[in-house]
């Protein structure tokens, strides 16, 4: 059935209102400070380590993202892989059920807009807010690196760092869409946040540990190579795993493969030599597509459920 008018009428109004809410909300301020402070702490430690150990490295700047000081378990990237889901879920777990609970949903939808505009507006505003936060953090890291190391990043380092920034935003998109999906499914915000965090813990910590056992259980008679590959495919159902693989491929240019390395791949290779950017991107491409597709899939699922939901509280 054809509906009159544009489905996205009012999108800009919803987007700006949500953006304004995010930027002034206490919750957002706290989350921003946590991510900035912890991120800078990780970078500061990385700088100390890089200054002590690295003589000449063509990708010195990228080490700021991936190196940890001895004795410290977290790199900047690992901080992000934990905090990005938290901040994304924190921004979206009550986006729709909050409107239900405040009893504003039916009043807003009684204005000449479709539900599409409300959902898209909320999602895009949250993603934009996170993007602003990550870009600011990224600039801080680059600026700090410039100041402390006294060297400018090479163009390839800059492009790799930009790809890393984009992938981090896509990674945030997955958790944002997940939080929004649960905010549509559950009327209680507490339930939505608990289920979202539970799923995050499961996918980030438990699933990668269990994937090898599940692979064995699924095909007990397979050879070792098949089992390793099956376990890896299963582990890739976790967005955290996908993000970690992309980060390894993009920020560590010597990475030749994200799976088992065969002898044929090493033929003629100079071990430890960096891969060209295009090759690194090819290695990480399926994971990048996976993150973007995951975001779209979860958003579409939420969209379909929201369209079918009754408006009344």
């Amino acid at each position: 059935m054809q509906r009159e008018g544009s489905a996205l009428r009012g999108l800009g109004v919803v987007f700006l209102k949500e953006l304004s809410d995010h930027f002034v909300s206490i919750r957002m301020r706290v989350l921003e400070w946590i991510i900035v402070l912890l991120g800078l702490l990780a970078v500061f430690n990385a700088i100390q380590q890089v200054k002590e150990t690295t003589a000449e490295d063509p990708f010195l700047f990228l080490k700021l993202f991936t190196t940890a000081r001895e004795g410290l378990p977290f790199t900047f990237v690992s901080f992000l892989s934990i905090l990005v889901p938290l901040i994304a879920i924190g921004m979206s777990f009550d986006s729709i059920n909050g409107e239900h609970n405040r009893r504003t949903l039916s009043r807003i939808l009684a204005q000449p807009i479709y539900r599409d505009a409300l959902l898209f507006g909320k999602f895009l505003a949250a993603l934009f807010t996170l993007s602003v936060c990550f870009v600011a953090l990224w600039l801080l890291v680059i600026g700090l690196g410039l100041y402390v190391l006294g060297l400018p990043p090479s163009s390839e380092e800059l492009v790799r760092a930009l790809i890393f920034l984009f992938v981090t935003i896509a990674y945030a998109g997955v958790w944002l869409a997940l939080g929004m999906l649960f905010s549509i499914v559950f009327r209680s915000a507490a339930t939505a946040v608990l289920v979202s965090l539970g799923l995050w813990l499961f996918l980030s910590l438990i699933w990668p540990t269990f994937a090898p056992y599940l692979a064995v259980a699924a095909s007990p008679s397979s050879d070792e190579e098949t089992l390793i590959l099956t376990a890896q495919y299963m582990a890739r159902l976790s967005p955290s795993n996908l993000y970690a693989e992309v980060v390894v491929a993009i920020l560590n240019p010597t990475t030749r493969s994200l799976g088992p390395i065969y002898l044929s791949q090493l033929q003629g290779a100079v071990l430890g030599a960096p891969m060209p950017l295009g090759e690194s991107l090819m290695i990480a491409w399926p994971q990048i597509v996976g993150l973007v597709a995951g975001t779209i899939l979860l958003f579409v699922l939420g969209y379909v459920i929201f369209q079918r939901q009754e408006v009344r509280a």
Partner: protein
Amino acid sequence: MMSADNVIEAQGLTKRYDGVAVVKAISFSVARGEIFGLLGPNGAGKTTTILMLLGLSDISEGQARVLGHDPVREPLAVKRRVGYLPDQVGFYDNLSAADNLRYTARLMGIERDEREEKIAASLDHVGLHDVADHAVQTFSRGMRQRLGLAEILMKDAQIAILDEPTSGLDPQATAELLQIIRNLKTRNVSVLLSSHLLDRVQSICDRVALFNKGEIALLGTVGELGQQVLGIGYYVDLEAEGAGALEKLKSLPGVRSVEPAGPNHVRIYAERDVRSDAAAAVIAAGGRLLRLSVETASLDLIYNRYFENAAGARHAA
């Protein structure tokens, strides 16, 4: 085909959830400038009917036209011209009253140059001008309801759909709100309101539909319903001097009975408003008219009697 005088028409409107009908083939119309009440207990199907008319809930069967538009196919056209005050209306508590209206004004597509003027005028109309910049979290329930009405006024809506507007309000706030609703009528805005508090809205409704279990049990003016259910629509209280005069009242057309209510005081039970005929009869008989007033049957009484009768009929069957 929709009548030119009707702003809302529903024909065989049905809503089913998982195969269970919660609104069962109801038909009614609302005329231009009319205040129409959808009345009945909670869970009777009033809000579902309203949401279908607004295009916010799918129609399982039947059809509706709102200002000539199909709410299913043309929801934006309907929502542009219809204002809606939901049951227990919610606002963004951290925003001021004016900011809440600003947001909905932008969603409505009101141009920037006329936005502020409309916001100020509508807040003034509902008596919230002085608190326009106060956060809504400080507002009482009555003030929130009035803010909801301000939103409808700002929209220049041709129809105002009000869901349980007086629910949870104290008598003073109810009286103020009902007065604002009456004022809507003077602006030629048609009003469709739902309520389970029959006595509160009886005074302002031109016509009502009494809901029961998803069906319209009774529809008409309160007088017509009184006539239909109680056999009487109007109670006329009359005080007059001159005993002979009161005797003549029994023979007036439309009068069912005349019962004494005190010295020189009778209550006339009639099918119609017989005040003018009664006054003329008293004066023609040489009597002196002291007091004359009319009341319609109460909706509570009509509603209860209707279901007593329906239960009695089922027992008899």
